[in-house]
């Protein structure tokens, strides 16, 4: 057992877990944040994507101890109080989710995708970038629309602020 401490959604947390505990299980079980999901065993589906030090990571592929001392953000930490993150709002506005199971991972992937591309995204790029996230409900059509809309909106907000 190892004491693992990190900053989770801006709060310092700590828990004593088995050395082999994966980050996703640390988040779900030791910290009780169940928005991050496990959809496969092989790091393929992306339902478990969180941000570690600002970058999207499949939390089923990382040991909790590897995230010791890191800043970790899950889908629960994305909204600013009652105000949804633009990507969350766009997923709702464009019906980018159905059963909701892949959605947290999709949203966390999308936020990182928009950051890395500085908000400049076309449909082909979005589809290519979603390689690591599987959705069985939406056929991706509305997820792609939602990410594009959020990216465009975030660029517009940035431009307006400049």
């Amino acid at each position, binding site marked *: 057992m190892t004491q693992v401490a990190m900053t989770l959604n801006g709060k310092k947390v700590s828990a004593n877990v088995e050395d082999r505990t994966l980050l996703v299980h640390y988040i779900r079980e030791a910290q009780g944040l169940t928005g991050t999901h496990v959809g496969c065993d092989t790091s393929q589906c992306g339902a478990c994507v969180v941000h570690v030090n600002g970058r999207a990571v499949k939390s089923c592929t990382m040991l909790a101890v590897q995230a010791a001392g890191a800043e970790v953000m899950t889908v629960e930490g994305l909204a600013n109080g009652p105000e949804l993150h633009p990507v969350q709002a766009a997923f709702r506005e464009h019906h980018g989710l159905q059963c909701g199971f892949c959605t947290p991972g999709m949203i966390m992937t999308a936020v990182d995708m928009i950051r890395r591309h500085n908000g400049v995204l076309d449909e082909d790029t979005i589809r290519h970038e*979603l390689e690591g996230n599987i959705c069985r409900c939406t056929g991706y059509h509305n997820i792609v629309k939602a990410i594009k809309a959020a990216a465009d909106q975030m660029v517009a907000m940035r431009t307006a602020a400049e």
Partner: protein
Amino acid sequence: MGVEGIGARALRKEDKRFITGKGKYTDDMVLPRMTYAAFVRTPHAHAKVTNIDASAALDMPGVEAVLTGHELVADGIGNLICGWMIHSKDGSPMNMGAWRALESETVRFAGQAVAVVIADTQAQARDAADQVVVDYEELPVVVSTTDALAGGAPQLHPEAPGNLIYDWDIGDEAATNAALSSAAHITRLEIDNNRLVPNPMEPRAALADYDAAEEHYTLYTTSQNPHVARLVLSAFYNVAPEHKLRVIAPDVGGGFGSKIFIYPEEIVALWASKRVGRPVKWVSDRTEAFLTDAHGRDHKTVAELATDANGKITGFRVQTVANLGAYMSLFSSSVPTYLYATLLSGQYDIPAIHANVKAVYTNTTPVDAYRGAGRPEATFVVERIMETAARELGLSPAEFRRRNFIRSFPHQTPVIMCYDAGDYDSSLDAALKAIDYDGFPVRKAEAASRGKLRGMGLSCYIEACGIAPSAAVGSLGAGVGLWESAEVRVNPVGTIEVLTGSHSHGQGHETTFAQLVSERFGVDTNAVAIVHGDTDKVQFGMGTYGSRSGAVGMSAIVKALDKVEAKAKKIAAHLMEASEADIQIEGGELKVAGTDKKLTFTEVALAAYTAHNLPEGMEPGLKEGAFYDPTNFTFPAGTYACEVEVDPDTGKTRIVKFVAADDFGKIINPMIVEGQVHGGLTQGIGQALLENAVYDEAGQLLAASYMDYAMPRADDVPSYELYTTETACPGNPLGMKGCGEAGAIGSPPAVINAITDAIQNNNLAMPATAERVWRASRGVMAQAAE
């Protein structure tokens, strides 16, 4: 949100919890003193279990128990059943082999559960499961549909000689044979419908909690139909009587059919929770899901279509062998029979049809309903042979279909179904226009100039939803009635709760159903709550599958709303001293026609509960329930058009454009309906291009993870162009037909028709992988080079 009625693209009420990570799925539930279950599964596809040694596992840290089939049988837990009786053509009942939740004698598919370990943590349970030593004596294995019926094939069940479950017929054999004998032309096609794994993103899970003091069980589970689960667990598996068993299906992460069925793991979790006296949670990992979730499709078919000299169809003969896997899952028997062969008339006026279906056992995972369930298989047969026949007859595929469309309704097909309404020309016209069918030769020539092969494929599908009139399905062998129930509770403050037996696992019922109420009473959708998925809250319900929640589930709500409205009008008339017939509901108010007298809906609701001044003899309260039993199936139909471009150097297919023109009848929320179509299309395109549950000869599922099974990803599919046409369904009060499965039903033949058109080779199996397309296109390339 305001009033958002029928036809409004209302944003979903349920979304906020999902986008903020606050959904509550079964695996998110935690109970005090909870244990975890891990199953010991056979690595062999067919073997005798000669010994199970749990001693090492029992010594492992945290282990509470190791349980096997011996204890299960001793405790009187019943065998799993198939709930739809099919009789063979000779009148004999289907041959159902025994299926135990834990098998301690003979295992019949790789992954079948032999024992279960219950431990304090999931990791401890899994570690200990690895230490349970099971001795097997391997038996010969049969995997393929064809091999199962061959003489000398390994036998799975003593109850089913020759591995034959049933040999079933539908239609008029003599008339069909006569039509084929006198045909001007016969088109013959051999068709394999590839085996698929449903793969909802949330793996199955169960959390069972036994209360010894009350002798009562609670089961949280990933179910599309919690009441059916409770019924089966009570009546057949002897877990507990219904009033001592509460089944809760909370947020469920997709189902696509695979979460209809009651599986061994839920039964074992319930039983084990009593055995160990603690709650037991089991969560499937993805490979377990591949090995144990009921698979879909897996048909082998020979079809022959007879046409006369004018290109009119005169007869259709179909012979299918359906692989049901190692055991008969809950509704497996109905899928290749009444959900398949009854749709073989397609959109066409065919005077004579005969189909023979043989269902067989093999050493593979059980097969049952997967999105479309029988109708995708039928549509693939019909629409592939229509396209093929058109090519053979030298007719345009669109024109050949048009020549044979049914245009008069109601239309009785030769295979039971009576189509109530439709306009197949309209959807075909819409699709052809959207894809610019006439301009295709120009685009094909342009692609050819770049060395690419373009193809165009159509699929004019029809399917049957709204399953179904209870008496009708009862006469065909169903063990249950397929009505739906609803209860509408108006609270004293005028907010409304709707309890429904339908279950939402992605379909957006919380929004669509609320729109229905919003429209009816003019109340804000935020004032309406949809309650579902809990047998303690909703009295009974048949659940969600077969695109039935609109046509059947919402019809039950309409019936209950009618009763609430009638009572509310009586109260309003009494309070305003008006005639009941003069009361109109408009904008959330009950008004006396032709006067300025009115009461708000809230005032009437409050009056119902204060009961200070009700009409003589009226009971207080405003709450009504209803059961709705459909009068017929509904028949969604449409045309899908697919244009592909094949790279002959690599065999890679790119879908250039995909157009869907669907007639779903009345649509409540177009946004949600479009989402259903997008998802269905992607699953159908997945079947056509990517997905295949491949077994090796030893019965090992080679595609048992996302590393090996090609799930459609975002860059495998295009954005879609959707259109709707509308003929109202006369069979239910809202005129709804259903939209959940059409995409998966109609799209595979459109894709394969397009690719075979591009490569000018009709011999192409699904999935049309790059390798297969490359090989199949060699002929046309060789010709082009000459």
